[in-house]
């Protein structure tokens, strides 16, 4: 009897995906509040950076992990989001929510366009096309027809509104930005988590596993791939908008190939296809350059060495993780969870059953 009573809420909790995700989101917001209020300004800035990196990584992880399409050029969509935000703030002075929504829409629109091409490309072909996008797009900012609009190689300066006065005069800007980015991350994870459990999420997995089988069972393969690409790019656009606000800048130098690379590294390291993994990956990829910079300062390394440590580590991580630990961190976490469950929860259950 006691066992039944204890099991009932768990069952309800497991039955409704929406309720579970809502609860997790609220918990996430509470954690967000306490973490940001206890951190200093610099740490809050890093927190904001982790959040927007995680948003872009989560989008990429849905694309590559669920629908099996790869993008080596997701940094290009981040760039589009950042420039959209910069232009909207500069010229139209819209409220922040609308500006960010604008970045989502434009990023998603460009993503869908690329997705139309992507739906006809496979594996290495798609990788090559997106690589070309990542290498080529930033140069557009310095194209002579667009230089006046996009600010050339120097980029655009972004001035966003200060924290609202109702929070108090001395409310730190970094904490306000951490709140915005954190809120966006929670919303992103909530939406993507529900998406992956929905019909379209199932279609994506089916398309990844076997396109012909998916088509035979009535899934519109090309449409699924285009929609996935669009969604993934839309979140990259959101990340770009937040990037522009947090760094007060949208410039071609910020959206090089190594940005696309760090997103891919985060997704692979965390575990392709897992949203939680996207967050772990983003944390590591964001903090890594800071750690190596600190380390280099202590060891008195020359600049050329320490500036390239992150690059070397990204490369090593991509190679080693794919060859030796294809599941990334998340599969490690899952294994650990299963191990703990087998060790502690199951003996408890069997004991209760024998008692009954």
């Amino acid at each position, binding site marked *: 009897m006691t066992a039944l009573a204890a099991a009932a809420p768990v069952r309800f909790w497991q039955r409704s995906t929406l309720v579970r995700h809502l609860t997790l989101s609220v918990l996430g917001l509470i954690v967000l509040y306490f973490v940001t209020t206890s951190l200093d300004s610099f740490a809050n800035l890093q927190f904001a950076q982790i959040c927007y990196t995680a948003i872009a990584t989560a989008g990429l992880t849905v694309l*590559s992990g669920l629908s*099996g399409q*790869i993008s*080596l050029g997701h940094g290009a969509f981040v760039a589009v989001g950042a420039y959209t935000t910069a232009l909207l703030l500069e010229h139209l002075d819209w409220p922040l929510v609308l500006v960010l929504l604008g970045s989502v829409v434009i990023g998603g629109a460009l993503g869908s366009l690329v997705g139309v*091409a992507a739906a*006809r*490309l*496979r*594996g*290495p*072909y798609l*990788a*090559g*096309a997106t*690589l*070309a*996008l990542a*290498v*080529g*797009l930033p*140069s*557009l900012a*310095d*194209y*002579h*027809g667009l230089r006046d609009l996009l600010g050339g190689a120097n980029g655009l300066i972004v001035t966003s509104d200060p924290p609202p006065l109702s929070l108090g005069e001395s409310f730190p800007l970094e904490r306000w930005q951490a709140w915005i980015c954190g809120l966006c991350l929670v919303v992103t994870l909530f939406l993507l988590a529900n998406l992956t459990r929905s019909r379209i999420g199932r279609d994506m997995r089916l398309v990844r596993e076997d*396109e*012909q089988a998916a088509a035979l069972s009535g899934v519109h393969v090309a449409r699924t791939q285009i929609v996935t690409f669009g969604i993934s790019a839309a979140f990259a656009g959101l990340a770009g908008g937040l990037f522009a606000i947090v760094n007060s800048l949208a410039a071609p130098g910020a959206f*090089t*190939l*190594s940005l696309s*690379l760090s997103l*891919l590294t985060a997704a*692979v390291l965390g575990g392709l296809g897992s949203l939680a993994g996207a967050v772990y990956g983003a944390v590591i990829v964001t903090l890594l350059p800071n750690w190596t910079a600190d380390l280099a300062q202590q060891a008195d390394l020359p600049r*050329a*060495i320490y*500036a*390239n*440590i*992150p*690059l*070397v*580590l*990204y*490369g*090593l*991580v*991509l*190679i080693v993780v*794919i*060859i030796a630990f*294809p599941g990334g961190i998340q599969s490690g976490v899952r294994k650990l969870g299963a191990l703990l469950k087998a060790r502690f929860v199951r003996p408890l259950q069997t004991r209760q059953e024998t008692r009954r």
Partner: protein
Amino acid sequence: MGRFLDLTLAGLTSGAVYSAVALALVLIWRSTRIVNFAQGGMLMITTFIAYTIVSHGGSYWLALIVAVLSGLVLGAVVERVLVRPVEKRSPLDAVVVTFGLLVLLQGVAGMLFGGTPRSYPPAFGIAGFKVGDRQLLFAPNDLWIVLVVLAVMVVLALVFRKTNLGLRMRASAFAPEVARLLGVRVGRMLTVGWALAAAVGAIAGVLVAPSTFVSPTAFDAVLVFGFTAAVIGGLDSPPGAVVGGLALGIVLSYVAGYLGSDIVTLASLVVLIGVLMLRPQGLFGSTKGRRV
């Protein structure tokens, strides 16, 4: 008209280099069904090795030979150590591993040589030939580049068609199981294929170095162009790679000349997508080259 001719000749020269890079990609694709995204990084490293020799007073020719030899070694090592484990897995894994290698090589090069672009001496003069009163935008060094690429192509064709090694390599690429049953050491053939491809890439690196300068990221665009050229020609076809490279070089030269040099990479993306949409198997590729 003069400008058009100049742009065409300049495009021919850069196109020859893209052809060489595309050739390297095609060699690897034919044998292992992998697009080597590390190609740009590998030829960057061999070019840096050549640069080190040149900057210490070594001759252009010594540097070129050492670059080719180090390419052979690098290609073989990469195939054995990194590619072997992911060969039979999903194409996504191979893409990520070779992309990882690209970055790893860029990072290592950055540590050793720093980010400043270094100039690389050309083999021959860079003042254009004179035809009557007019000075063409085509110099002895450009002629050298075109001739080398043609020579590489002829040598590769001879190796594949006329030698025992070439026969075994083709057998390993097209029917690995049958080849294995007939006593061909397929694994070894794949290693040789990667080594050859990396050596071709090394030649391309040294040829293009005088015009792009040498730095860890200088060859990103060369990789993109090489990939585009290979896709235009059909990833399966070595002659296609050469024709694709020349065509792309000329088209991009017009884009640079008439529209602006900033958007050349973007133009190559447009060409790439256009070709893939109209003819996914490329101009010379067999339809069987691509599933779905």
